[in-house]
């Protein structure tokens, strides 16, 4: 736990100093909403369409963060520094996934209200608690799978391509779960709680990939 907190603290400090990843993710999300606004040629959207637009935008914004997750480690010797320490190597996975999760939370704190203002027809008010639950579960999947994919990609030459090529198919079930879970919440006169089936699927996906990532991560770090 101490190692996780040490790496997490370092990553958050680096992001505060450089301020590169989060602004890019947030700006991308807002610009994408504007593009959808004009591209769909509709003043407002709701229901499953709204859920699809929101989750796809968050997914692609997350890819920006995923691509940058291990760049400092790769370019400034952070991998070697960590591998030289007498610590559990899986702590790096947990720390990076936690950092990415926090970035996604900050992204959504800004992007979801922006989505509500720019595109969404129904009010977000009643849907918010359920939407937060769905997005939180989706964020866990994005964070865990994103960290795993980023660790694979950063060791290759075509790292900017490998991330999306491997990551997007792996994240598709999570995307489906998020969209199907959020759809009824964002409908006009929609439900205030997400469908239990999709929440369960998302949670199960999170658990499976968390365990899988924990099992393989050590091998990814070896040269």
């Amino acid at each position, binding site marked *: 736990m101490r190692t996780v907190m040490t790496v997490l603290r370092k990553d958050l400090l*680096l992001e505060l100093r450089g301020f590169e990843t989060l602004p890019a993710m947030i700006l991308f999300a807002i610009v994408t909403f504007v593009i959808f606004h004009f591209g769909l040629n509709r003043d407002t959207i709701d229901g499953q369409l709204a859920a699809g637009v929101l989750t796809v935008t968050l997914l692609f914004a997350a890819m920006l963060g995923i691509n940058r997750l291990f760049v400092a480690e790769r370019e*400034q010797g*952070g991998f*070697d*520094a*960590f591998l*030289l320490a*007498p610590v559990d190597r899986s702590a790096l996975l947990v720390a990076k996934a936690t950092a990415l999760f926090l970035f996604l939370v900050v992204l959504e704190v800004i992007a979801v209200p922006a989505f509500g203002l720019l595109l969404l027809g129904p009010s977000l008010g009643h849907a918010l608690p359920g939407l937060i639950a769905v997005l939180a579960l989706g964020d866990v999947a994005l964070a865990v799978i994103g960290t795993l994919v980023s660790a694979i990609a950063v060791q290759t030459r075509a790292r900017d391509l490998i991330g999306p090529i491997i990551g997007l198919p792996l994240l598709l079930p999570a995307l489906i779960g998020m969209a199907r879970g959020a759809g009824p919440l964002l409908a006009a006169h929609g439900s205030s709680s997400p469908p239990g089936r999709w929440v369960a699927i998302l949670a199960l996906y999170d658990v499976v990939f968390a365990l899988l990532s924990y099992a393989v991560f050590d091998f990814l770090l070896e*040269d």
Partner: protein
Amino acid sequence: MLRNVSLQVPAGSTLAVLGRNGAGKSTLLRILATLLRPHAGEVLVFGEALPRRGFAVRGRLGLLAHDPLLYRDLSGRENLSYHARLHGVAPDRIEQLLDAVGMRERADEPVRLLSRGLVQRLAVCRTVLHAPSLLLLDEPLANLDPAATELVGPLIGRRSGATRVLTSHDPQAALAEADVVLGLEDGRTAFVTTPDKVDAAAVKRLYA
């Protein structure tokens, strides 16, 4: 690639590794540092077989490589604090080392603003932060002026008391420090001997 490199380094002694660029010096250090997995042969550090028992030795060795392993957007103090936490070292050790290398006044500046010499001093601090018994030093005095070289001597020199494996492009300086000398040529052992028995012609061939 390294082939047929075989030797022993007694505790407390210094092994100097000589060879031109690409001879395998850095590869050897990275294998000893548990950062590279050997494909064949046996590597024992403190009697522990690598890579299987790598976790048992990591806390006891320090690597000073070409890359300082410091985050450029963090200050020297922040970088050392990060490494200290990873190694379970008390914070006052950081101040002790910063004083030892004359970096206390510039310890709060981002590393990217420091000269290569000052960065190398911080890298030395990082290397010895956890008081390792084995020092793996890849051209340790690179970018250091004579004053800085004098400052880091007690930390990474013979006076440190640690077992040392060091590489250098300056054969004479390396031989002056060494108890054992390994000459590498294209990844193979050219010679293993003591400094007093080193053949000058053999050293010259290494760098030809």
